[in-house]
């Protein structure tokens, strides 16, 4: 994706989307807030009247608030699906505590003499509540509503994780695409929204409730109407639904490519990587973006659709090694190449499944696999040197680096140190060029698009052909950095679209074109 030069260029280009996200954000915040007020204020009054149960009710609402947002959203997918419903419910739960607590404090804080005067004059409990207690507690109650609003504007950014929209789409999309303008385009309106809502509520807080009853009733009514409009806007739809990560949405070799080459026009929502497999499995989504060797394909019984127009670049994994090391210890190359051609997509998926889902130790998985391939040998004694292997911070990389370590120890007279968990691509690559590590497993697509970043013409010319990409990165890495790409291992960890296996079979869909064909009928 071409990154515009300035923040303003980005904003003016994305004006419509920004407006829509802001409205969604406001809708999520206000709708959940309205429900929280409708439930929370009476609940606060109720526990103020029944003080014995007050501590337990406040504790429960307090505990609700300590549940991490992501966990809460995850819990709710099976119950409420994805989209605005679970988001609003989660926001409602978070808003409850400040509202209930402040209502309770406000009502119980009304001077006992004043309350006695009210009943002593002959007011009924209801009259005392509406004419005296609520008006006097009003500033405190409003304080709670203000706190809840600020919390909700913040938490509502997380709604983007479960396809509920809002400004989080820009924020998290920007983070994964490393696009600062995009992050700011989400973060600044969110901050402004928080400040603006707080300011408006602060004005309301100063109002003497005894004077302006009519205006006050207008406020919740307006909120409700706005919220209802919002709810209708996002009404249910029976068509197939695709869920993509914010990163996928912003990539040329992702959603943008799908649109251009396939004319992709399915109903699409933005959802977090951690949530989407579960949402697909729970039938809340029908198609998601993902990686072809992800262990979750096996865990959730999914199938990858064939990319029949070849828009996703190849991501073949191969070890990248410093040439100096190969000159010094030529036997290392032979040892590493032993793995070449041994692991295809489904084997890698299986191995990842063991690591990510069965939580087996990557080294145990590596050893078991090498033994099954009759490649494993016991480490040799008295090593004459040492090789440092790096890896990025996910299961597949841990498994591969463990296999390389075992192969080097078993087939050469060298010892191995591993530096696993080197964060992302950039950190690994820098460690390699700075000689802190000697090799790590890399993917051709990453080397091509992320590290080399060739111009658009080169990209378009080569991207469809896996061999051309491999040749290009090999040549460029050698001449530019003195690094050598050894033979690919065999599997292609590329972007794919996937569906539930059963669903795809029912619909007779096996390629992306099939899917779009079906969507048009």
């Amino acid at each position: 994706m071409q990154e515009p030069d300035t923040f303003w260029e980005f904003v003016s280009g994305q004006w419509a989307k920004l407006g829509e996200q802001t409205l969604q954000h406001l809708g999520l915040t206000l709708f959940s807030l309205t429900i929280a007020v409708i439930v929370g204020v009476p609940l606060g009054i109720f526990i103020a009247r029944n003080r014995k149960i007050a501590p337990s009710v406040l504790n429960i609402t307090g505990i609700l608030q300590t549940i991490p947002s992501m966990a809460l959203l995850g819990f709710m997918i099976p119950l409420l699906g994805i989209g605005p419903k679970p988001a609003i419910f989660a926001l409602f739960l978070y808003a409850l505590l400040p509202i209930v607590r402040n209502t309770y404090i406000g009502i119980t804080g009304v001077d006992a003499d004043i309350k006695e005067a009210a009943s002593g004059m002959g007011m009924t409990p209801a009259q005392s509540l509406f004419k005296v207690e609520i008006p006097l507690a009003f500033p405190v109650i409003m304080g709670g509503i203000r706190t809840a609003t600020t919390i909700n504007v913040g938490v509502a950014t997380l709604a983007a994780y479960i396809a509920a929209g809002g400004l989080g789409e820009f924020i998290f999309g920007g983070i994964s695409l490393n696009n600062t303008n995009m992050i700011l385009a989400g973060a600044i309106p969110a901050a402004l929204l928080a400040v603006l809502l707080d300011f408006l509520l602060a004005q309301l807080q100063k109002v003497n409730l005894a004077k302006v009853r009519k205006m006050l009733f207008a406020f919740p009514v307006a909120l409700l109407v706005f919220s209802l409009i919002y709810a209708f806007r996002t009404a249910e739809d029976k068509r197939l639904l695709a869920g993509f990560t914010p990163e996928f949405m912003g990539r040329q070799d992702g959603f943008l490519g799908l649109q251009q080459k396939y004319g992709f026009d399915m109903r699409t929502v933005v959802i977090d990587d951690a949530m989407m497999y579960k949402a697909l499995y729970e039938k809340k989504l029908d198609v998601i973006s993902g990686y072809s060797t992800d262990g979750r394909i096996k865990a959730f019984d999914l199938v990858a659709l064939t990319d029949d127009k070849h828009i996703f670049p190849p991501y073949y994994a191969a070890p990248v090694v410093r040439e100096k090391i190969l000159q010094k210890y030529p036997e290392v190359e032979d040892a590493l190449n032993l793995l070449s051609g041994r692991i295809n997509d489904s084997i890698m998926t299986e191995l990842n499944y063991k690591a990510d889902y069965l939580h087996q130790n990557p080294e145990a998985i590596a050893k078991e696999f090498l033994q099954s391939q009759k490649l494993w040998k016991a480490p040799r004694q008295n090593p004459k040197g040492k090789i440092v292997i790096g890896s990025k911070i996910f299961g597949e990389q841990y498994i591969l680096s463990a296999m390389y370590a075992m192969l080097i120890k078993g087939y050469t007279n060298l010892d191995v140190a591993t530096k696993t968990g080197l964060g992302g691509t950039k950190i690994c690559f820098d460690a390699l060029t700075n000689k802190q590590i000697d090799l790590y497993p890399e993917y051709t697509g990453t080397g091509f698009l992320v590290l080399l970043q060739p111009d658009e013409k080169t990209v378009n010319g080569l991207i469809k052909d896996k061999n051309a990409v491999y040749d290009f990165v090999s040549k460029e890495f050698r001449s530019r950095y003195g690094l050598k790409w050894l033979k690919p291992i065999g599997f292609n960890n590329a972007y794919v679209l996937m569906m539930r296996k059963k669903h795809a079979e029912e619909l007779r869909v096996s390629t992306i074109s099939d899917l779009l064909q079906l969507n048009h009928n």
Partner: protein
Amino acid sequence: MIEVSNVSKSFGKNAAVDNISFTVKKGEKLILLGVSGCGKTTTLKMLNKLIDVSSGTISIDGTDIQDQPAEKLRRNMGYVLQRNSLFPHFTVLENIAVVPNLLYWEKSRIDERAKVLLEKFHLPQERLLAYPKELSGGEAQRVNLARALAADPPILLMDEPFSALDTITRKAMRNEFVELGEFKEKTIVMVTHDVQEAFEIGDRICLMDGGKIIQIGTPKQLLFAPINDFVRDFLSNSYLQLLLTVTRCCDIWKFLDDNQQAANENDKAFSAEISVAAALERFKDKNDTDQKIRMRCLDSVKMLSVSDLLQGFANYKAKTDART
């Protein structure tokens, strides 16, 4: 008429009020007197059902209050709290309008009533739109009284209505209140721990201790016929002042020097129905021996100085004591 019979109230094991009985006739002013914690407030609040009795019955004009909805009962009884309790979010007018509103009075009638009350309590009309926090303590207490009287209830319950004020304002407001036409018509039950106040206002005084009634009677009965040492001790501190309060100038009339200066019969004269204490208060400077006031008892009029009054009172006292 209020009838309290065999009423007790306990909070847990603590008997706040222990088997008390008394009646208050229409138009009568009954004072509940006693030290802190003796059960005065508890007794008062049982009359308007802010506190429920543990045992015994209370009836008002022949109807047991248990058989009446609390709200209805309370709207016919003015209630003045021990502490200032104006609604802070209401203006003076809105505070006064609370009970009339509950009784669905028309707005014009409420406004009219509020104006009259403000006049009676010597507050400027523009105070109607002020909020309680803008009032002085004395003004607030006046509004508090006005609020209790707003719907002209036949019964008025007052819990130490003047206690939050300084002694001078307190005395002034008490006199002002006693002079009010509203005051004279109403059946009043008032709580105080101030003996002087009790003697000035009360037709009868109910002296309490530890939740029990020790003695109930007119100020004179308490002063001259205390039933035990507790009553005697309770009154002994301000005995002379109380004596001057229960003795009317009429009572000592024949012991007063008949000064022949009462020449002009048409001049304004105070009624001798007032207490000696009240008469002494009419003198602006009590050390000025030349200052005199005109006083009338039945047909006779006398010009009296402070020393004349004190002399007469001493002679009266000596004579009555000799008789008993």
